[in-house]
């Protein structure tokens, strides 16, 4: 360390800042959760953990959580795969572009939006199920939950497969074709095996996301209790921190395991690099045996996604969609004359404050890991990644436990939200910046140093311009994610700062679905407008990376 200090003083300073930041903002909060779980009044006492694992009621919650994660992971991965194959090999021209955007649309859905419209369309009094088909189905429970999660998380799989399918060399398929293989057989023996890392990666990422999902289990889970909602209810309903940490630690384990398994397995390979290599051969269009089912799945999905979005907007502009379809602005009036206006400005302000901080934190750690030779630098990477690996509700609980008392009494301040948003979104900036830095030949920086520029000047004049795009996409990702996250901030709400997603939860708790839809519509518009504006300002590529 001392040798490093002498050789790279700037790097050592940076490492010091990063170490302090990570220790206070990530290690301390998550450590607080772990400590509370195993330390009782009389010393070591893992009672919260044993209670969760031995009580039959809570054990069922653990089982439910894992079942949900595995099924949602499988379903969303397969759907994303089908959509990616369709855009790459079946759809053409405008329909391809249209499907591409529709496939990614659920990314901008705030929590609740899709569950809310599922209730509007497929609920007990749903427009489609009850009014149109006369069926009586209840969406509350595992079925409805999976329906919403598969649609919500399918873009994650879609983006992974979209990138991978484009990288597939059509020459391989052509070779198989020439050897007499059928299209179905090519799909089975050539394409699917080549995409195997994609399946593993997508499944694991979605498994983690599904476990961390708080909004959908609360709204549409019915009696199907899962760990994330149990943590939430233990705090919000009882403020029983021992109970909450018990659920949290049990939830943390499979999440971390799956997350880091994914990283080790798939590694940095999921970052798309531009090779500049011209694509050889003709892109193959499938024959009907493959094309028809793929098209059917894609068309049904596209219609569903569009209908769900339309239902949110329709729900916002009607008295009560399905019961009383009179057009009205009452919902918007209630939202905007109430807390809504403040929630809009507060949430946008806090999200915008945290976004650059998150991107710079990601850049700082990426730089430390890729460009310096600080011993043990890879630890920085892993610790910051915990922000994305830990479920949002666990992170939020840690922040609540850590900063609810002196020396760092932050509850009720803006700082606590900025911390939560930053920790949650910096890992994505870290990945983007790491990939960008690895693509830049260090000789550029060496040249600058040889010409007499100091480390700071080199970073500012050479490195920073080259990673600018990655940093920008980190900012955009962070902003949109901050606007739409619920799980991370659900336990931190206070009268001083209003968060839109928390207000939506509040509306839906009181069964004011119309106001919930109005809030969701406003949130979707803010996110879309931001993306479109930034797209205009910085070009399309930035957004693609961010998404």
């Amino acid at each position: 360390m001392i040798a490093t200090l002498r050789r790279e003083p700037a790097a050592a300073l940076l490492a010091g800042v990063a170490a302090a930041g990570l220790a206070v903002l990530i290690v301390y909060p998550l450590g607080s959760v772990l400590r509370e779980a195993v330390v009782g009044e009389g010393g070591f006492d893992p009672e919260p953990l044993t209670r969760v694992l031995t009580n039959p009621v809570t054990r069922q919650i653990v089982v439910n959580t894992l079942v949900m994660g595995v099924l949602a992971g499988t379903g969303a991965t397969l759907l994303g795969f089908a959509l990616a194959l369709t855009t790459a090999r079946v759809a053409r021209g405008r329909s391809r572009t249209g499907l591409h955007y529709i496939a990614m649309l659920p990314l901008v859905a705030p929590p609740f939006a899709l569950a809310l419209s599922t209730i509007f369309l497929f609920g007990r009094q749903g427009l489609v199920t009850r009014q149109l088909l006369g069926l009586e189905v209840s969406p509350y429970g595992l079925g409805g939950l999976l329906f919403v999660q598969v649609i919500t998380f399918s873009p994650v799989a879609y983006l992974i497969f979209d990138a991978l399918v484009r990288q597939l060399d059509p020459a391989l398929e052509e070779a198989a074709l020439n050897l007499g293989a059928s299209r179905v057989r090519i799909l089975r023996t050539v394409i699917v095996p080549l995409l195997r890392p994609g399946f593993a990666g997508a499944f694991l990422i979605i498994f983690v996301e599904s476990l961390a999902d708080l909004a959908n289990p609360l709204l549409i889970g019915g009696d199907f209790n899962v760990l994330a909602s149990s943590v939430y209810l233990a705090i919000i309903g009882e403020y029983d921190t021992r109970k909450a940490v018990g659920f949290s630690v049990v939830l943390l384990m499979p999440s971390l395991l799956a997350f880091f398994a994914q990283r080790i397995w798939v590694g940095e390979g999921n970052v798309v690099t531009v090779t500049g290599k011209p694509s050889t051969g003709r892109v193959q269009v499938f024959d009907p045996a493959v094309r028809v089912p793929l098209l059917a799945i894609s068309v049904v999905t596209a219609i569903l996604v569009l209908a769900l979005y339309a239902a949110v907007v329709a729900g916002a502009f009607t008295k009560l969609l399905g019961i009383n379809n009179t057009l009205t602005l009452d919902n918007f009036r209630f939202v905007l004359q109430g807390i809504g206006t403040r929630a809009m400005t507060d949430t946008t302000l806090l999200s915008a404050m945290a976004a650059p901080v998150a991107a710079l934190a990601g850049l700082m750690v990426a730089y430390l890991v890729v460009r310096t030779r600080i011993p043990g630098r890879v630890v920085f990477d892993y610790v910051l990644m915990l922000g994305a690996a830990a479920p949002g509700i666990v992170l939020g609980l840690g922040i609540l436990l850590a900063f609810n008392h002196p020396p760092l009494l932050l509850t009720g301040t803006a700082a606590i939200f900025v911390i939560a948003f930053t920790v949650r979104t910096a890992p994505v900036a870290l990945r983007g910046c790491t990939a960008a830095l690895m693509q830049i030949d260090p000789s550029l920086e060496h040249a600058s140093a040889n010409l007499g520029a100091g480390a700071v000047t080199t970073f500012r004049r050479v490195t920073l311009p080259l990673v600018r795009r990655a940093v920008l996409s980190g900012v955009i990702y962070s902003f949109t994610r901050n606007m739409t996250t619920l799980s991370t901030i659900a336990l931190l709400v206070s009268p001083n700062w209003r968060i839109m997603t928390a207000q939506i939860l509040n509306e839906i708790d009181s069964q004011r679905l119309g106001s919930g839809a109005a809030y969701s519509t406003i949130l979707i518009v803010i996110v879309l407008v931001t993306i479109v504006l930034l797209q205009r300002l910085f070009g399309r590529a930035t957004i693609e990376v961010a998404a």
Partner: protein
Amino acid sequence: MKLRAGMFVAILLVLGACGGAGDPGAGAPATASAPGAAAQPQGCGPKGSGSLTILGTPQEEYVQGVTKTFEAECGIKMSYVRLSSGEALAKLRADKANPQFSVWWGGPADSFIAANKEGLLEPYVPKGVEKIPAQYRDANGVWTGIYVGALGLAVNTKVLREKNLPEPTSWADLVKPIYKGQISIAHPASSGTSYTMMATQMFLNNKDIEKGFAYMKQFHQNVLQYQKAGAAPARQAGQGEVAIGVVFSHDTVAAIEGGFKDLKVVFPSEGTGYEIGGMALVKGASDPVAAKTFMDWAITAKAQELAPTYKAYQIPTNADAKVSDKSVKLATVKTVTYDFQWAGDNKKVLIDRFSNEVAPQPR
């Protein structure tokens, strides 16, 4: 793209229209309070720091309306958070070291008694309390009643007709298998409404907890799903998702006013439970002066008469306050003898038992 832009313009128009409509109302208090303390409107006490944060438990329109009116009348800047009783109690517990709220306003008094047991409240007897009958307030000034409400069933007559089900008239009817999946109620841990219902079953069985729980277990078999907010089941019944919601009758009246015309209120024939909506000063309140000014104001007849304006049809506790025609006439409804002290003292035990023994039962 065009469509997206069109939607954006539409939203802007909506925002503009609503903002415009809201402005005159929002502007008024600012001018009213501009002259400062010298021009303080009649009936308002000292302003303290000039701002106040309250924890409100009744339905949101009511909390929002009351805080807005108080802000306009007394020039104290208000902010609020609405939480159901159980959540409010949990929040006070969480914030104990650093209280975020000065007043807890509304929700059944049982929760105030439970909060006081945990040392979360500070006694304060509001000025003019003699207008509130003694049975509607705590003798030691820990909490003061601001309204009274009775439990009732929110019955969707259209759903019952469609399903060929008879109208339920009693608590005993609610455990009949014909209503399986047709009843909605909140979870008593989060909702004071739901806890009032559970305590009512105990009182109907002369505080025999075993018999009370035997009923709750049967009742559980018919519940579709436990909601979080107490009034939510009225709207759920209104939307036809279930036939029956167990709520306070004023919440059903509000839902009918809000457009759920198929609903009607039914009071169970064995006798129904009721609530006294409490109000209390939070211990360690950051602004006790403004808090007391608000509490003095909140028990006045004038303040309580505001309630129906915000679709809150509880019965006012102030003897001088006019009662809305839409409020239930308590004298005409058969009620149980509701022991608030007992309900408050036993709240934690009963809810733990419900959470462990009743809610997880398969059905």
